[in-house]
């Protein structure tokens, strides 16, 4: 085992450990000093997760959150120095974390917060001009073949729980009352988008989520509408498209020639 390997293993070990070969000027136990590094590493990794997932932390309390985050960090230290992306699979870890089983929505709240962090740092793009939208609307015959380039920050999430309502309840002053009004068992879907500097989170229907996912995958508008209608006959294209336009989610419109959709 190389010196750094022993050092790294001891930093992440559950039980306080001290690698060999360390000395102190006064002959005191190096383990006490090594603990500073252990603490630095664990606190910085846990803080990174807490910064990304403030609502998840509030839902379970700081002590519980830090315990889950510590277990996650030990088993899944970052693989890159770019910490903005740390914790991509943290939600999956929470899902399997037995002590959190009593809060079945917790993992999805963490998932939503991770997507929010992704959207926050995603590439910039300008929305298409109102003229381009007007042009599209003026020629209904070309609508089904139209394809959209969506904003790089756009993320879609579908949950069996009321994740958007749970998240939104934590954005105001009276979290307790807002939370009491949330039926956590209601399935919700979310659209996340950073059009300017702030990430907006919209509650959308499952059919709208399906619709946007297919647009995002590069399918024509007609195909995306058909697939959304197949998921839910009540799907309202005007409303869904209106949301994308208002939110600034559409960055480009193309009309491939001879497109069959």
């Amino acid at each position: 085992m190389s010196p750094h390997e022993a050092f790294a293993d001891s930093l992440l070990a559950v039980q306080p450990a001290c690698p060999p070969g360390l000395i102190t000027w006064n002959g005191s136990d190096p383990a006490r000093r090594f603990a500073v590094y252990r603490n630095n590493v664990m606190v910085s990794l846990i803080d990174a997760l807490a910064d990304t997932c403030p609502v998840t932390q509030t839902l379970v309390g700081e002590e519980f959150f830090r315990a889950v985050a510590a277990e996650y960090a030990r088993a899944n230290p970052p693989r890159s120095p770019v910490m903005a992306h740390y914790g991509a699979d943290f939600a999956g870890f929470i899902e399997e974390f037995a002590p959190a089983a009593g809060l079945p929505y917790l993992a999805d709240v963490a998932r939503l917060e991770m997507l929010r962090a992704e959207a926050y740092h995603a590439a910039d793009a300008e929305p298409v001009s109102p003229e381009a939208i007007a042009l599209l609307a003026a020629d209904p015959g070309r609508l089904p073949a139209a394809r959209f380039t969506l904003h790089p920050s756009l993320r879609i999430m579908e949950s069996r729980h009321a994740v958007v309502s749970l998240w939104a309840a934590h954005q105001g002053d009276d979290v307790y009352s807002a939370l009491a009004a949330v039926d956590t068992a209601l399935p919700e879907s979310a659209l996340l988008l950073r059009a300017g500097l702030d990430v907006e989170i919209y509650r959308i229907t499952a059919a709208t989520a399906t619709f946007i996912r297919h647009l995002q995958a590069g399918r024509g508008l007609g195909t995306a509408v058909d697939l959304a209608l197949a998921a839910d006959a009540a799907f309202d294209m005007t409303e869904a498209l209106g949301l994308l336009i208002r939110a600034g989610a559409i960055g480009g419109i193309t009309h491939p020639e001879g497109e069959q959709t």
Partner: protein
Amino acid sequence: MIGNASPAPGLPARGGVGLKPEHFRDILASAPDIGFFEIHAENYMVDGGPFHHYLGRIRENHCLSIHGVGLSIGGESPLCEAHLDRLARLLDRYQPESFSEHLAWASHGGAFLNDLLPVPYDAATLARVCAHVDRVQDRLGRRMLLENPATYLEFAASTMAETEFIAEVVKRTGCGLLLDVNNVYVACVNHHRDPYAYIRALPPAAIGQIHLAGFARDTDAAGDPLLIDSHGAPVAQAVWDLYAYAMERLGPTPTLIERDNDIPAFPVLLAEAQRAEAIMNEVDAVRPQEALA
């Protein structure tokens, strides 16, 4: 070896402050008269969004230092080329007046530990660190500054003093030094050495920038003081004194106030940067010319 590759004109010999997202709007609104800002490179290795939005605007009016915290120059394995590529893109985009990194390691076996971990000062480590500094300077096409570490432990394997090690890296690679005066103080208290002698032992001509920060107090297993480089407090008086001594030796040098925890309002940090500026100017006015010798 890169000789005289320090990019002109360089940072001004003034006070600067670490740029924090909490202060973005305040800085744009107040357009402070400040020497420079410094960012942690890794925080800006993202595709877009508010970080680049604000940094781009702040950069238009201010000098910039880019300070890496993730290269793991003291690491056992070769430097991560993908990370060097990210750094090269960031430097290309913002054209900073200075680029610096640490004498420390953070990555091992694919894991990034997000801390500045210590290295033994022996011949093998020296050869590795020099090879890594050479690679950084080759890849980025510029001279880098290497920062002295705050450490809590020493290695039985060390065969030379930290200052000897650092001076040798400077000699072999032509890199410059970022003298973190707080780190000098913290490490010298922790290892029972003389911080003034430490500063005297470094090659003065190589020092291109200074860092100042606050520390936290703890004790080791014997009850002796153990200072923690917390970046979470104002600069301590003992560190200001040591800084004034460094300025006597070096003359006015770009000096950064670092604050990464318990971050106060921007004017509080600006006032510390102004205090550094006042010290470097005051000392410079009475400094005998031979102090440089």
